[in-house]
């Protein structure tokens, strides 16, 4: 099993969700996050004083999938979230040791 953690533009969440649904991946955790990579942020002006807002709003999508479909899932996410501009985000992949279903207590493979 793999944990795939993607940081994407907020307006791309629906497209990523749809792309994953096509692979029959329906379970996911989505979190509103802030961060930046190479993207510089923007200038905000409050009461005449300028601020550089470097941490921009992003969405983090976490899914756990069997190894066999991990590559397809990554391709789907990258394809759906890409605009080609700086600030499209990142995909991180982690190995998952074990997974339990809380309702039944059973260990999933």
């Amino acid at each position, binding site marked *: 099993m793999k944990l795939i953690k993607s940081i994407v*533009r*907020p*307006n791309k*969440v*629906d497209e990523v969700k749809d792309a994953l649904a096509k692979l029959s991946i329906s379970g996911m955790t989505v979190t509103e996050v*802030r961060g930046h990579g190479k993207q510089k942020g*923007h*200038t*905000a*002006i*409050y009461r005449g*004083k*300028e*601020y*550089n*807002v*470097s*941490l921009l*709003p992003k969405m983090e999508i976490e899914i756990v999938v069997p190894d066999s479909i991990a590559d397809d899932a990554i391709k789907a996410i990258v394809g759906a979230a890409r*605009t080609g*501009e700086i600030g499209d985000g990142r995909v991180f992949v982690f190995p998952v040791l074990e997974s339990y279903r809380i309702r039944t207590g059973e260990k999933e493979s």
Partner: protein
Amino acid sequence: MNQADTAWMLISTALVLLMTPALAFFYGGLVRSKNALNTMMMSFISLGFVSVLWALVGYSLALTPGNNWIGDMSLAFLNGVGLAETGAIVPLTFPHILYMAFQATFCIITAALISGAIVERMRFSAYVIFISLWSVVVYAPIAHWVWGGGWLADMGAWDFAGGTVVHVNAAAAALVAAIVVGKRREYGSTSVLPHSVPFTLLGAGLLWFGWFGFNAGSALAAGPIASLAFVTTMLAPAATLVVWTFLDLTRSGKPTAVGAATAIVVGLVAVTPAAGFISPINAIFLGAIAAVPSYFALIIRARTSLDDSLDVVAAHGVGGTVGALLTGVFAEKSINGLFDGAIAGNPGQVMIQGTAVLAAFVYSAGASFILLKLIGLVMPLRATVEEEGTGLDITSHGEEAYLHVGGATATRHGSF
């Protein structure tokens, strides 16, 4: 000079002015958080540009004798708008200057209402230019037709506080603007949901409060007709809210909060043309009836590709039309001292009311279309794809409605 009337009109003017910030909250809650400030600013900016234009030329073009179609420039730049009660188009018992201010607040909110159709994608600068020109080219003539002794007044159309002048007029412009500007790029996707329903409820509450000035103030005196308009303004939206709740229950099994806020506005819109003309019991009927067409107009609109984002047409267009027609049904001369409606034996009144609605709709839609096309020749009407994706708060105003702690660091600029 009547001091009670003066006091009431001072209060009413302030009440109606408050409706525009109230509308900002109503609309602001219904959009996504990345566009909250931009949407609210579309209402607030009207308080500036439209007010100034009204004082300079709008008031004179709307509310001077002129001809059947438009007023003249005799009161332009507020020349002759003084502290005495003389010189206005209607007989007054309070200062003329206060009547000008009261009427200004109507023009301000009418222009702001249009924004509901184009939020989350229209360029702010193009919007400001549009509503500024619109307030002079569209609002002033229609106000003149109904309240300035123009042709609709001559024909015998009655509009107590602006069902046609304000609501049908704004809705026609909104419909055209939604079509010309085009739909949001993410229209139809599940991500386009209200970001703060409490804001919308707050806005609806403040609108109701302000509407007492709008309708009861339109009596232009602190007397029996103002009291009647006040009570009908209380009862009609109440009835709309009750019927709307049952419609919600029947359709989805749950009474929704956005539905309740919408119902209140629909009831207020519908009673506006009738407020000082009908009995309080008929106001309950009027409010109850008005719920149905607007409720289904909302549902049908959402299934089309018409992105009238915050349903200006369903709430103000349909509600305003139903209200104007029902004014011609429920009006009683024994109450208002002016004219009877269909139930009291004057069925022709409904036709006259319908003609007024149609005329306002056609003129407003046509003139708004031309204005938008002209502005579109000089500048883009729409935000860019990138601006729309990022959100118009950051891209148009350089601010965010909800800035997270640690999201910003101050940078020094120039000499502090």
